Every structure is written in structure tokens, then in C-alpha cells.
């Protein structure tokens, strides 16, 4: 029991510097391998405390899954990683999100530049009402990426395993694609700006199982080049694709009638899904709540 508690506190209260006490199965062992280090991250929407005191380190070129019941703040936290929360006027983020050594919330940091490096794929496929080609070319164009645009578009679509399906209809409207194709096109669009990280907010929730499986395969291929952080409601999906899994839950304070998202446990996917340290994680993954 004490061993479990110790492990739990170690993972969730990660230290900024490499620590000799780290367990061997903690993949993020050196700073070079860590893309994000979250220190005391809190998110408020006006008076609503959405996420509290998150401490975690997200490793490079791996898939990190954020799971948990509805309202646990996992999407909110994901949107802190590329400052997407800036777009919500009432949202306030405190603490620090250190990306490759730089705090994304420092005053000098340009959120637009952050989002170019840290791309995002959304819950519902959201193509621009433009041709497939223009959808992919939009990002490189606004970011002034040099090179032959045709090649950039082709490479992005190849990387997203969509090229063979769309190469003859690049000039057609992206709304003509199926839902799964649209979502892969959105992944291609994110890849086209050559990001470092791809955030995925429940990318398969609007897709059928076959389309979901293709996205999962794609994620596994992409992790050779990109760091992927995915929010998912689907525990099987998290178990299948993620290297590390973070389990969040909702803490309900009856007295204040408030609900706040907290990080319960963050470990390798294998540990989370076979031998979790925390009883709440176990209850969730075995389907007893959530």
C-alpha cells in the first residue's frame, strides 16, 4: 500500500530536474525526452475551477492519452498545451506549461507561434469550406513555409494515409469526403505546418469503428516523428494506442457545490490498464464508474 502511494505521488508530483528516485518504467527520464512539463496548472472559467494543480511530464515521440469521465477537464487541459484556451475570454490559466524549456504562458510568447508548433485535431472533423488542396495548403501559406506547395500537400496527405484516396480530386470540396477521410484530412492539415506536437481532442468520437481503426493506425505511424497527446472517451482506444496514460477524475465538493478536474494517476498505459495504483483508476477502467 505504501509502495502504491509513493509511486502515485511520484508520478503526479513530477520534479523539474531529473531525479534519481524515478522508477525505471517512467519513460520521461531526462529533460531531452520531455516535451511538456506541467507545473501547478490550474484553469478557471470565470468562477468555475475546471482543473486543479496538474503536474505531469509528457514524453517526446510517444502517444500520451488523457482519459477520465465527462467534465474531468481533460479537454481543457489539452487546450492549455497550445493556448487554445486563449480564445475563450473567461478562461484563465495559471501555473506553467513548459514546452522544450520555455513556459508557454510567459508574456513574451506568441500564441500564434505556439499553435504552429503544437497542432491540433478536433473532436468533429472541421474542414474549411474549401478544396482538399486549399485545406492542406492553408497552414503552410499563413506560416510562410517555403517549398513547392504541391509537394507539401502531397507529403502531408501521404503521411496521413489519405493520398491514394484523394489524389485525383484535390480540387474538390473537402465536404465531399466521408467523415473518416475528413478527419484524416484534418490530421494532414495539422501535419502540413510541420509541427512538433499534435494534440487530438477525441478525434474518433464522430467516426465509425473502421474509420476509428484507421486513425489509430495512423497515430501509431505518426509517433515516429511527432509527439501525440490524445484525449479519448474510449478506454480501449487509450489502451491500444497510448504509451502513457493519464487518468483524470472529477472531485465534487458538496459544500461548495463545485466540480473540479484533478489528475489521479499518470503512468505507462500498461500499468494503468493492468495494475493501477489508485483505486479510483481501477474503478474507472473496470467500468465501475464514469
Amino acid at each position: 500500500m505504501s509502495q502504491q502511494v509513493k509511486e502515485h505521488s511520484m508520478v503526479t508530483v513530477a520534479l523539474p530536474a531529473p531525479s534519481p528516485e524515478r522508477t525505471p518504467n517512467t519513460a520521461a527520464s531526462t529533460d531531452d525526452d520531455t516535451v511538456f512539463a506541467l507545473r501547478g496548472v490550474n484553469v478557471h472559467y470565470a468562477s468555475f475551477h475546471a482543473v486543479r494543480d496538474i503536474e505531469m511530464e509528457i514524453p517526446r515521440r510517444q502517444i500520451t492519452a488523457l482519459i477520465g469521465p465527462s467534465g474531468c477537464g481533460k479537454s481543457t487541459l489539452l487546450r492549455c498545451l497550445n493556448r487554445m484556451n486563449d480564445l475563450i475570454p473567461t478562461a484563465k490559466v495559471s501555473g506553467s506549461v513548459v514546452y522544450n524549456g520555455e513556459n508557454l504562458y510567459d508574456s513574451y510568447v506568441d500564441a500564434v507561434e505556439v499553435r504552429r508548433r503544437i497542432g491540433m485535431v478536433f473532436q468533429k472533423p472541421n474542414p474549411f469550406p474549401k478544396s482538399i488542396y486549399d485545406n492542406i495548403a492553408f497552414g503552410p501559406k499563413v506560416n510562410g513555409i517555403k517549398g513547392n506547395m504541391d509537394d507539401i500537400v502531397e507529403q502531408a496527405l501521404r503521411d496521413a494515409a489519405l493520398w491514394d484516396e484523394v489524389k485525383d480530386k484535390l480540387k474538390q470540396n473537402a465536404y465531399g469526403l466521408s467523415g473518416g477521410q475528413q478527419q484524416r484530412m484534418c490530421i494532414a492539415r495539422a501535419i502540413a505546418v510541420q509541427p512538433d506536437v499534435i494534440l487530438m481532442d477525441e478525434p474518433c468520437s464522430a467516426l465509425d469503428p473502421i474509420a476509428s481503426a484507421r486513425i489509430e493506425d495512423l497515430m501509431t505511424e505518426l509517433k515516429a516523428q511527432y509527439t501525440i497527446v490524445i484525449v479519448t472517451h474510449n478506454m480501449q482506444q487509450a489502451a491500444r494506442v497510448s504509451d502513457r496514460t493519464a487518468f483524470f477524475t472529477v472531485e465534487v465538493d458538496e459544500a461548495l457545490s463545485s466540480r473540479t478536474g484533478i489528475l489521479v494517476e499518470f503512468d505507462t498505459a500498461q500499468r494503468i490498464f493492468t495494475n493501477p495504483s489508485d483505486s479510483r483508476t481501477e474503478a474507472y477502467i473496470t467500468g465501475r464508474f464514469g
Partner: protein
Amino acid sequence: MSATRTTIATVAVERSLAARKRDWLGQAFQVLLLLSLIVALAIIVFLLSNVVGGAWRVWHTRGTDFLSQGGSRQAEAAGVWQGIRGTLTLVVFVVFLAFPIGIATAVYLEEYAHDNAFTKFISVNIRNLTGVPSVVYGLLGLAVFVRAFGLDRNDGGGFTGGKSVISAGLTLAVLVLPIVIITSAEAIRAVPGAIREAGYGVGASRWEVTRMLVLPSAAPGILTGTVLAISRAMGEAAPILLIGANTGFFSSGNQDFVEQLRGTFTALPAVIFGWARETSEFRDVTAAAIFVLLVITVLANGTAVWLRNRFEKQW
């Protein structure tokens, strides 16, 4: 045995399906709706036949002469050329003043401004301004553009030149500004947030998202609003009469372009207003002038619909 049972069951189903009583109220309502439609159509047909009849007689006797002649004290010689030119000049003012300012205001309110009490107050007031009677705008134009900026002189004091095309153009631009803002803001608001998110997600700035994604998506809606504004501006009589549009014969002589803008002017509604007060000899030319105004309005609407369809196909 079973056949009997089926029959009984069928009868029961038939009875339950058959209407218990006629829905009199519903039918009466339907008749009422149809009557309303007939009344509305009858009024339009009566008005149109009146106008088209007069216009036809003028066209038959004078041909294009009616379009190319200026105002005159004789009904046989009176034409609408000055009115057409005045109306089109006023539309140019509206297009170049009200549209950029109105669309920019809408973009600011929807895409940039924080949603606080102050911006809400502004939005509510802009909405209220669309309901202000046009004669009030005419008084505003008279006080500000004719008097304050025109030094109350007909012969070209101040930068507006008093009762001039510039004063009327500015007044109409102010008049349609709230319509342009409201319709543009609604078109911009109708653009799905997911499209904006997608733009920000690949590292586009707010300006790039607005210019390359939001405005093109909202363009058809904005165009519809601007057409409404043009139609409104072309049809308004009260403000331009207050500004001092000429309702009868006048000559602009050999003035240069700027002098003409600062000089005496008229527009189709003012021409129609003037002729409608003349003797019965003017009845047909009045109808013909109304017909010309209708045709120009329909042409403007048609152009906008065509532009809108073209925009939509580009996606």
C-alpha cells in the same frame, strides 16, 4: 371464424382511423391564410398594373427619350435622366462609405471586441438605430451635413456645398449604416466556430482567420445585407427631400465633376415626389419614373444574387 375476427378487427381499425369530426377551425384558418395571400397579391397587381400601364404609354409615345431627358415643366418633355444619375451617384456614396465602415464595425464587434457590457450596449443601440424613421436621418443630415459642414449656403459653402449630392450621399450612408452592420454581424456570427478553431489550430493569426476564413464564409450573407441597404437607400424620399433634393426643373450647366457633387441635385424618389404633385398631365410620366426606379432596384438585387451565387460556387 378467423375471417370473422379479421373483419371485426378491420372495422375497429377503420373506425379509429376515421376522423371523428371535421376540423372546422383548421380549415377556416387555411381559408384565412389564403385570403390574406389574395389580398396582398391583389394590391401588388393593382399597383403594378397602374405603374406598368403609365410606363407603357410613355414608352410608346416617347421611347428612350424619357430616359435621356432632364427635368422639365412640360410633362411631354420631362425625363428622368437627372434622377437616374442622382440616384446612382448616391448609391456610389453608400457603397464607398457605408459598406467599408459597416462591415469593419461588424468584424470588430464579432471577432475582436470582448463581450462586455459596453459592447452589448453598442450592439443594442445599433439595432435600435435600424428602427429610427428615415425622416429623422434627414433632419440629422440637414443639421450636420447641410448646415454645419455646408455653412447653410446653396451655392457651395463648406466642403459639402450645402444642399448637395455630398450631403445627401453622406445622409443616406449614415441611414443604411446600421442595416449594413447588423446584417454583416449576423452573417459573421453564422460562420461555425469550428472553422475558426481549425484556423487557429494551424497557427493562423486572428487577422488571417478573419480575412481568409471568416469573411469569405460570411460573404454571401454580407452581400445580401448590402443589397438590402442599397435598395433602401435608392427608395428613400424623405431624407433627400429634407436635404433639399430638387423636385422640378434644374440645370447643372457645365460644372466640373466636383462642382456637380457640391451642387444642386435630385434623385428618382424626389423626381417622383415632384411629379406626383403636378397636374394630371404628369400622371403617366410619374408612373414611368416609378417603373424606372423599380427596374433599377430589381437590377441591383439581381446583381447581388448573381454575385452571391458566384461566391458560393467558389468554395
